[in-house]
């Protein structure tokens, strides 16, 4: 029942302009996403996976696109190195290698999952605009699903990321358990989310901006005060870095760490299923 209300609220928010939501997390939004993507490079070198398939939560797929671009670049680099290593190839064989309809991602796949259809629609539009295409051959899939009850089998994914999404889940512990379930052993859980500010001066300024400015922006730009009031209140209700770390550990993850960005306005939590 609560998820229905959640769905309706987010449909309402999605109908209005997307900009105010972005402003509430600026500049942490894109920086945070970039940071999480860079973390993924560490995953590659740490585990040496040849192919990494990943699940991405958050319908607009910003992290998914960065990941795909990165994998694509890596794969191209790998192809080049392979060709250089192979000697005495005729030019016909080299041309054939480049032209073959081989998977440009080398087997990596990304699944983007969200509870809200509008979010997924916008994500697909973004993908098309950037030149990515959905479907098995290009490694990007869009799935409608609930984080508390994922429509995937156990032990399916190498990486699970969720950015500014887990705050809106009604039962966070269930979402964490589901994340644990769908990850393969050795898989990594990464979560980017608003957190508690540790610096008192920044905390006051941040509170001032959140409560005084954001609902006003929501009203002026989108004609919706209530949704943006809810947004800033839900941010305050989210557990602190340490509390969330404990919740992740309770779900069965190990080696849980976190990194605070911008004095703790957002934090990246990481855990492994071992």
């Amino acid at each position, binding site marked *: 029942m609560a998820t229905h*209300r959640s769905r309706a609220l987010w449909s309402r928010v999605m109908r209005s302009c997307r900009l105010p939501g972005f402003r509430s997390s600026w500049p942490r939004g894109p920086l945070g996403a970039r940071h999480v993507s860079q973390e993924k490079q560490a995953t590659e070198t740490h585990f040496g996976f040849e192919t990494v398939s990943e699940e991405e939560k958050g319908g607009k797929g910003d992290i998914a696109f960065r990941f795909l671009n990165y994998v694509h670049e890596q794969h191209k680099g790998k192809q080049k190195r392979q060709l250089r290593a192979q000697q005495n190839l005729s030019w016909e064989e080299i041309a054939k290698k480049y032209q073959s309809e081989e998977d440009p991602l080398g087997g990596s796949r990304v699944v983007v999952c969200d509870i809200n259809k509008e979010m997924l629609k916008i994500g697909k539009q973004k993908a098309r605009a950037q030149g990515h295409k959905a479907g098995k051959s290009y490694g990007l899939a869009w799935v409608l699903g609930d984080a508390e009850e994922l429509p995937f089998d156990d032990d399916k994914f190498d990486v699970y990321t969720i950015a500014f999404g887990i*705050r809106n889940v*009604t039962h966070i512990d269930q979402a964490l358990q589901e994340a644990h379930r769908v990850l393969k052993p050795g898989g990594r859980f990464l979560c980017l989310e608003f957190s508690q500010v540790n610096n008192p001066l920044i905390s006051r300024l941040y509170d*001032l901006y959140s*409560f*005084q400015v954001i609902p006003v922006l929501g009203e*002026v730009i989108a004609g919706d*005060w*209530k949704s943006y009031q809810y947004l800033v209140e*839900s941010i305050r209700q989210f557990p602190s870095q340490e509390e969330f770390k404990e919740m992740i550990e309770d779900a069965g993850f190990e080696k849980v760490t976190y990194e605070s960005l911008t004095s703790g306005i957002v934090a990246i939590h990481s855990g492994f299923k071992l």
Partner: protein
Amino acid sequence: MGTLLRSALRPLRRLGGLRGQAAVDVPLRGVRHGAAGLLYPGHIPTSPLQKALLAAGSAGMALYNPYRHDMVAVLGETTGLRALKVLRDQMRKDPEGAEILQKRPRISLSTLDLDKLRSLPEGSLGQEYLCFLDVNRVSPDTRAPTRFVDDEELAYVIQRYREIHDMLHTLLGMPTNILGEIVVKWFEAVQTGLPMCILGALFGPIRLSAQSLQVLVSELIPWAIQNGRRAPCVLNLYYERRWEQPLRALREELGITDPPTVHVRGLA
């Protein structure tokens, strides 16, 4: 700066008690009035800083996108406190106005008896009002409810002002095109002194053509100001009791002369 911060952070203390509450309950909180400082249904309490930001933002947005009527409403609510108090005191002194303040009549499609109004004789206020609604294809239900006024009686006053806007169009014989709206705004500015009306009256003509502007300044605005000054406060009229009154007689009672006939290319 310290007092500003303190007053701005006051809403935070209220929210301090919310920790641990399920986030999903939050959107419904505003519906319960009487709790958490809500004075009437739909009330959103705002700090002085928020009101200032809202006023600036809504003014800018209303100019940028004239179809954002909700922004005009927000501008009126956030800037009109002093004018509303003056209006309310004026209404209290007038017998008909005091009755309106007490009975709190609302004009909407649900409260209007459309069949009765249609059966009234031609030339009566009720008939002319319905005719105006039909010709201009407007409805009295499009007025936004008050949200940012922090006094329950003043919230009604501004709501009443919004709901009789169409009545003023009928009284002044002005259509709902841009020129007509500006003329009514000038009349309202003189009558109510609301900053939103004054700003609308001054900035509304910005997007007009030279010809319209000339007609406006030379004939329509002087006529609006003259009538606005001469007429008693239009908020004091219990329109719901005057449906049968002939419009002409009402105009005479208020001292409103016939509108000047102007022909502007491109306007109805």
